[in-house]
């Protein structure tokens, strides 16, 4: 067996070890390379920045713990920004398995910034139906969510004064890890009820949402951990996303090196077999 053949059949545990080290070492010894801000992320930031105080900001936390590493930092950065701007924050989720996590993160950021439940923010929780919930909220928010996550009637929440349905929402961001997520919020929500909307998603989903972004159907897109790191840099409060960027950098470069190596070995093997064929 030639060297190239042996390298192409390398034990996958070596690759696992390499990726593990590329993830672990930068987390232990951060480098802190500068993060360039993209126009996609700036779109969401600038829009929130332009909103007047007490505008209604709806955040739909449409992910579960599986996507927590990428979307949780996005949600925290967005909430910090919205609370600092004194917006009325209404949070909810379309993913039942994300309800507890969403409640914890909203409460955590609200407490950190000294916000009062019911007056400055509310968490509506989860309601069954997926996209039907979006349409129902567009028709009548109190019909879709008669009570909030803690069981209080939504009609009694001062934060919802003057909010009847999605038409009264000033800005909405869906942080989606799949369906229902950003696309459903656009198709069943924004398109009919005409509110401004931005999106956030996992890195792997981001390319699929670029058509919505380029056509102006959403005014910004926070993609993956990189997007979260950009948003953290924009609000000037670095968190887990910025910390994770070094690890992601090292892992990406490691995968690129692996792909280049595998192609070099592949071509060397192909060349060798062609030469052998000619000789034969």
């Amino acid at each position, binding site marked *: 067996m030639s060297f190239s053949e042996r390298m192409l059949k390398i034990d996958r545990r070596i690759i696992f070890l390499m990726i593990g080290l590329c993830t672990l070492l930068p987390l232990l010894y951060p480098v802190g390379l500068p993060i360039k801000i993209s126009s996609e992320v700036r779109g969401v930031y600038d829009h929130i920045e332009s909103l007047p105080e007490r505008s209604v900001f709806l955040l739909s936390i449409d992910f579960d*713990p599986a996507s927590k590493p990428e979307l949780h930092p996005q949600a925290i950065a967005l909430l910090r920004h919205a609370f600092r701007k004194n917006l009325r924050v209404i949070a909810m989720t379309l993913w039942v398995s994300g309800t507890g996590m969403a409640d914890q993160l909203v409460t955590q950021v609200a407490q950190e910034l000294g916000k009062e439940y019911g007056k400055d923010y509310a968490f509506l929780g989860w309601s069954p139906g997926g996209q039907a919930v979006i349409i129902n909220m567009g028709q009548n928010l109190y019909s*879709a969510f008669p009570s909030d996550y803690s069981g209080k009637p939504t009609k009694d929440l001062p934060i919802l004064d003057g909010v009847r349905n999605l038409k009264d929402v000033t800005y909405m961001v869906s942080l989606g890890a799949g369906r229902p997520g950003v696309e459903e919020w656009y198709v069943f929500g924004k398109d009919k009820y005409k509110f401004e909307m931005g999106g956030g998603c996992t890195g792997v989903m981001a390319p699929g949402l670029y058509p919505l972004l380029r056509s102006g159907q959403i005014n910004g897109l926070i993609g993956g951990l990189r997007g979260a790191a950009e948003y953290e840099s924009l609000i000037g409060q670095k968190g887990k996303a910025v910390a994770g960027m070094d690890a992601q*950098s090292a892992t990406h*470069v490691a995968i690129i090196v*692996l792909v280049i190596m595998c192609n070099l070995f592949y071509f060397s093997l192909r060349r060798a077999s062609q030469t052998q064929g000619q000789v034969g």
Partner: protein
Amino acid sequence: MIFLRRQLPLLITLITGLLFAGQYYVPHPASEQMLTSATKWLQIIGGFALILGVTSLFHQHAVKIKRQEAGWGYSFVLYAGMLGTIAAGLWADGKESVDGAMTAFGWVYNFMMVPLQGTMFAILAFFIASAAYRSFRARSREAAVLLVAAVIVMMGRVPLGEYLIPLSGDVSSWILNVLNSSVRRAILIGVSLGAIALSFKIIFGVERSYLGGGKE
């Protein structure tokens, strides 16, 4: 019986299909009220679908355990996990914490579900790296184009890549915004036209496979 099995569902599909397709374009309060009611029904049906799904899952795994089929132990774990979580959830009234103190349901969620789901997702990074090494080869021109584009996007999406090759960020952005967007949009338009055509076929009874293939 044929009327109940075939003609009535087709009639319901025809009427509701046309009604709700038209509803989108009629902003009259009565039309909006009809949509509000219908979406409320959908939410309620969604809730029942959840019960149906759980029941079906229970039934499927009960059969596996009863027959002691291969991997029946996993079915047993599923049963124990589901029943345990349901019991903890009912006991805690669906709350993860009460007055700041974590309930048993919250414990299951925070210390079992969250790390397990996170672990499953994190493992992907290792498998993707291994799979990329084994299969991402420039065997043809098309594969070579894909490979080069992937390498540029991967470099351009991380600070280290932009530091090593400063142009990679802009090129990656161009690939995503221009090439990727246009191709995705073309696919989206094609899929949407197909969905419209299929909807018409269902509304007008041309496509009837959703009725099932039972005896008439």
